[in-house]
């Protein structure tokens, strides 16, 4: 343990860092941790969208992004053609919700392994850790990059939706009310991106084989999402005293999946659009805790994962 600390201290001072890996001599200026993390994050963000790689690597990110934008585009066309000024897609739930979840799921399953599994597979981690970065820097840079990638996927369609609506309204007060409706949508989208990216990377980082990494990410998100919806539906009609009151099962089933937990949190925080889960009512705070727990489990698990990853 003490050897590890001195090694890290030495690394921070620039001593004990292997620069010459027997490949190419270099005696110019050396940049520090911050620049390394920045470069690593920027590279990971690009690889999340297949930029800098072949056309085959771009199929899934481009396809998912286009499908995610579809409701916003449909909204813009509908407003422009019919001349109405009422937005047809809400900012906070971005209906159809199943579309957002499905598209995000495919993106996570296909691209999270791109970000972390390739480094594991090609055994380059020892090279990264021979540089003056600390253990936590690598997963943090990867996480930041993948959260940014999910933000692009989630927030850009919202902005398209906003622009498509605002260009059709006439009065300034209408623009202001659109803007006020957009802000919670953007904040909620950020929560989606953070939770999805953290959990996606955690599951992807367990396997160096891309196939298994894809499989485990998809199984986790798809299984929990289906189970949560199904138990909600069963709880609504097979439990409870009356038809009007959703039973405790219907109110609690959403805690199983990160996506339904996010939706429950939205309703707890005051969201009124109908979502995939019913209003959690008195259980609302549980949904806030669940989202926080998913986020901490994902990010914390990722940090722990890279504390003991093989460097030999």
């Amino acid at each position, binding site marked *: 343990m003490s050897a590890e600390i001195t090694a890290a201290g030495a690394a921070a001072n620039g001593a004990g860092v292997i620069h010459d890996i027997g490949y190419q001599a270099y005696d110019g200026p050396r940049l520090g941790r911050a620049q390394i993390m920045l470069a690593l994050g920027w590279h990971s963000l690009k690889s999340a969208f297949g930029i800098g790689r072949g056309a085959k690597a771009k199929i899934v990110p481009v396809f998912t992004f286009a499908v995610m934008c579809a409701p916003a585009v449909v909204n813009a066309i509908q407003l422009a053609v019919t001349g109405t000024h009422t937005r047809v897609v809400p900012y906070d739930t971005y209906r159809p919700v199943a579309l957002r979840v*499905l598209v995000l799921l*495919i993106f996570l399953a296909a691209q999270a392994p791109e970000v972390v599994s390739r480094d594991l597979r090609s055994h380059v981690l020892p090279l990264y850790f021979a540089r003056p970065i600390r253990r936590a820097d690598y997963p943090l840079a990867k996480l930041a990059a993948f959260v940014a990638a999910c933000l692009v996927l989630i927030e850009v369609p919202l902005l398209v939706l906003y622009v498509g609506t605002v260009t059709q309204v006439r009065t300034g007060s209408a623009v202001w009310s659109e803007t006020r409706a957009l802000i919670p949508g953007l904040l909620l989208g950020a929560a989606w991106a953070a939770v999805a990216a953290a959990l996606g990377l955690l599951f992807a980082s367990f396997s160096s084989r891309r*196939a298994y990494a*894809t499989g485990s990410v*998809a199984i986790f998100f798809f299984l929990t999402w*289906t189970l949560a919806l*199904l138990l909600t539906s*069963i709880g609504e009609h*097979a439990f409870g005293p009356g038809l009007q009151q959703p039973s405790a099962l219907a109110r609690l089933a959403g805690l199983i999946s990160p996506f339904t937990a996010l939706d429950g949190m939205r309703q707890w925080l005051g969201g009124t659009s109908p979502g995939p889960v019913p209003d959690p009512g008195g259980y609302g705070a549980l949904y806030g805790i669940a989202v926080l727990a998913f986020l901490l489990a994902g990010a914390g698990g990722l940090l722990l994962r890279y504390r003991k990853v093989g460097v030999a």
Partner: protein
Amino acid sequence: MTRLFNPVVFLVTLRATLGRRQALLLALPALILIGVAALLTATAHSPVWPPEFLGVFGFTVVLPLTALIIGTSVLGAEIDDGSVVHLLATPVPRLAVTVSKFSVAVVLTVVFGAVPEYLAGVIATGATSRLTLGLLAGAAVAAVVYNALFVMLSALTTRAIAFGLLYLLVWEGLLANLVAGARLLSAGQYSLSVANAIAHNSSLNAHLTLGTAAVMGCVVTVAALALGARRLSKFSLKGEAA
């Protein structure tokens, strides 16, 4: 028999698939299925949930995902690490390789998917109810058709899991629910329709007659296996997809 099936390939594949660490994960969806069924049996007031839960969760999540992992790894894992050349260098016909590996996938999917589905049905409605027997038959059909498709996929592409997943989510999950024509080409509908032919339960959401489902299921299975074997017979080893 040897032109179609090779017991040695069967046993070696069975050992290799079960020997991996990931094999333990296969039991996880099945355990969740049984556990939730037991919980609901203990607490639900209404008897209408078994077909909905076992039909939807079992036939759109547990069975396809189990088949996806198993079906793509029986052949795909060997192609992935290159050791398949040793197998292909033996004088075993490629059709026999394909069918033997497919049989392993079916057996394992029945163990990890269809049997748990049956057990969940037993917990929910009893061992000899029509629903339980229907679910078992439907699950066996699902194991056969899905695995034929996934074995074919892993012979066609090095990214079989990704494409298999895309197929499950987009085709089976979305289109087969929205577009009536897609149901005729949906493995999920074949299995649900076979289950429905025994169980006669509209909550299973089956839309094909038994005859259509059986004929189409056989056609798809045979065609997928033939295509997979054909691809394998002109197999050339490539590195990992860039």
